[in-house]
């Protein structure tokens, strides 16, 4: 709703550029089209999980169990496909439903039994991790039998043909420009402050350039990866959900002031359960993608992903107290997080240092959140 660019937005873009510059200098392969394509797939996976986390943090809760959940529900689908020879779509559907039910139950416990989400999901983290290792029996379960492809494996290995990418690209740019014009006219009609035509034009122009550049670079390698399309669809949905629906308004209201929201007639309990159930669906989706990206379900899938998702939200300006944040911020936060991880892997930085770096970034982001909240 607020169209002003804050110092925070700027600092996000600038730190992203700095990170990219440093990695490019240290390791020129960072900007190779092959690495960028991989970076985009990794980014899609983390960003999708972070969008789910955003929907849980917005009403003032937290979910520590998503990393284990990613492993577990990816693993269940793998086992159904590989060991029980189920069709991939059916296996994924069943796993998805199980995840939604599980998260719905956790939401119920948070709301009805008044157990803090922190504790419920910390329990979930351990329970899901144990269940995950039981389900795959500490072995490696491929997502598809013997070198074939199925819907499951295609999730992260399918690339769009060039002409489809260009068509989509044009549609998206047209859509963005159209939305901008409509919203400008509406704001004018309402008597709200409207930004300069030049600023609006520049925003649309830069967005269009970025999208086009991305498609061009992707087509240098194998094309636009499917995960990016999934992410774009989900991000648009979450954006509409949070900005243009009753549900989204309520999420912000409950996160800002739960008591006032309750007195205003908002069904607070139902809302929180719904946001957890949505998280469940997103955990399953992330689980399929992460597992497909690795090629098979192994015990390390999803490890510590909950922290990357939380970090992405917080870096992107989502308040851990709830009530503040937006989709664009979360996407940027995820991109920063993933660029760091990917760059460090390229530089062959040891896992010890990678842990320390991840922890430092998370801490800095929360510190910034606290500082900004006090200003």
């Amino acid at each position, binding site marked *: *709703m*607020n169209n002003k660019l804050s110092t925070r937005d700027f600092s996000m873009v600038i730190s992203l550029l700095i990170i990219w510059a440093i990695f490019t200098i240290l390791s020129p392969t960072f900007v190779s089209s092959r690495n960028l394509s991989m970076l985009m797939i990794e980014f899609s996976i983390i960003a999708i999980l972070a969008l789910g986390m955003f929907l849980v943090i917005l009403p003032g809760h937290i979910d520590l169990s998503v990393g284990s959940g990613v492993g577990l529900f990816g693993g269940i689908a793998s086992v159904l496909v590989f060991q029980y020879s189920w069709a991939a779509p059916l296996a994924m559907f069943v796993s998805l439903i199980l995840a939604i039910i599980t998260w719905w139950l956790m939401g119920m416990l948070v709301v009805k039994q008044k157990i803090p989400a922190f504790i419920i999901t910390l329990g979930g983290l351990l329970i899901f991790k144990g269940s995950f290792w039981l389900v795959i029996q500490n072995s490696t379960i491929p997502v598809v039998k013997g070198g074939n492809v199925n819907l499951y494996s295609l999730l992260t290995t399918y690339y769009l043909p060039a002409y489809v990418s260009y068509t989509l690209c044009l549609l998206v740019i047209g859509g963005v420009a159209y939305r901008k014009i409509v919203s400008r006219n*509406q704001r004018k009609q*309402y*008597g*709200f*402050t409207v930004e300069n035509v030049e600023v609006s034009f520049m925003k649309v122009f830069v967005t269009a350039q970025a999208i086009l550049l991305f498609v061009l670079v992707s087509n240098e390698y194998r094309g636009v990866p499917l995960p990016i399309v999934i992410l774009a669809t989900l991000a648009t949905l979450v954006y*509409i959900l949070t900005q*243009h*629906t*009753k549900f989204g*308004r*309520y999420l*912000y*209201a409950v996160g*800002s*002031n739960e*008591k*006032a*929201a*309750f*007195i*205003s*007639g*908002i*069904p607070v309990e139902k809302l929180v359960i719904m946001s957890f159930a949505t998280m469940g669906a997103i955990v399953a989706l992330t689980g399929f993608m992460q597992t497909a990206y690795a090629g098979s379900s192994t015990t390390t899938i999803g490890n510590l992903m909950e922290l990357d998702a939380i970090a992405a939200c917080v870096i992107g300006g989502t308040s851990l107290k709830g*009530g*503040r944040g937006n989709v664009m911020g979360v996407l940027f936060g995820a991109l920063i997080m993933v660029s760091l991880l990917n760059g460090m892997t390229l530089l062959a930085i040891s896992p010890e240092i990678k842990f320390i770096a991840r922890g430092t970034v998370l801490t800095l982001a929360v510190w910034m959140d606290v500082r900004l909240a006090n200003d």
Partner: protein
Amino acid sequence: MGTLNFSAKNIIKKFPGVVALAGVDFELRAGEIHSICGENGAGKSTLIKILSGIHPNNSYEGKLYLGDESLELFSLKDAEKAGITVIYQELALIEEMTVAENIFLGREPTRNGIIDWHKIYSESQQLLNQFQIDIDPTACLGELGVGQQQLVEIVKALGKKSRILILDEPTSALTEKEVKVLLVILKKLRNEGISCVYISHKLDEVFAVSDRITVLRDGRSIATLDADKTSRGEVIHCMVGREIDNLFPRNKTSLGKTLLKVSNLNVTNRKKEVLKNICFEVKAGEVLGIGGLMGSGRSELLLHIFGAWGKRSSGTVEVQGEPLEKHTPAQSIKKGLVLVSEDRKIYGLIIEKDIGFNLSLSSLDMFSGLFLLDSQREFVENDKFFRSLKVKAPNLESIVENLSGGNQQKVVLGKALMTDPKIIFLDEPTRGIDVGAKLEVYELINQLTEKGYAVVMVSSELPELLGMSDRIIMLCEGRVGGTFVNENLEQEQLMSAAMEEN
């Protein structure tokens, strides 16, 4: 040490973009009680901050004088050294410590590095005796009522040899009885030669205690009046800059059918009985006032009927003939019942969001299709209430936190009215808002009853109850202490029902 005149001459204080004080003269004579009145935003709190050194000497124009000498204050500490102490609404006391420990907090007398407990208790007792305050210095502060805690704070200031006290809204949390005690003590202090600046919204108290009254408006001192030669009308006139002939403009309307009926209601909270055997009904076009002392269950009654508090052990609530039971606020709103809470910051507003967000929050169903909100229709409806309630703000995108108390209250009222209710619960609808905004709230109540709404208003101010209600219920310890038709009623009758002295 004698008390000196304390004065401020031609004070001008500017903040970035705002002139908070545009020329204020104020003189506190030795041994007088001098009240400062003004609407919210008139500059009272800025003036206090200057008088107490919180805004340091060089941050404003104009000068302070103590006696004939100019006084430069750079901090609260400087002010305390000059014998000036401010007592705020939120008390700076520690509940776990005894009264005497609190009185000597921060300046404990020691002997060889060890606290001299004997001195603390004997000197505290002496101070309390001197001003004839009946509090045991060995009592734990937390066991005292708010009124007595306030007295402890005053004694603490006197213990520091303060000769000038500045009291900022000291009675907002006190019961009527405690207010009386406080005012008596202040008069005693005056006789001892201690001067006092008294800031309050409540004109009754101002007139009961003051020697003189200075009125601020828009950052200027408009007038300094002798309390015994002026009238409430004149003070209000100075405050708002226009004449208000009738403070309570209640227009009676003809009554319709019964909209809300409460019978034999018993409510418990945490297994404790809070509301006992409550019966009443409200008709369309009627204002029912609910009064009672703090803790009598006024707000709890409204909250329970609205579905937000307590567990019903027996009794019924009927809204337009339909029973309400085990319901949530959301269900109440659907049935045409809405509540405006007494604490708008905690229970009313999403303070960091804009006006539009808040106005439509309870009515989003109205603008919601299958999935999407119709922002066009939402804007039209928001704009309607924004204009009709005359919210003073640039537009609907202004953040609620930056509005004055009165305008915030209008936003909460607008949110409630947009749900198209039949019955409106108003819990202390005019708390903490200025005279002008109060009048607008009262006029809104009149409009609502004319349109056939039923209004239930809880208020702790008896003049407001008498001024705006058609009938009044006084609660006493969770029971109905008395029901009155508001004709030739006296405050005393209501008070005795609230305390069940009849």
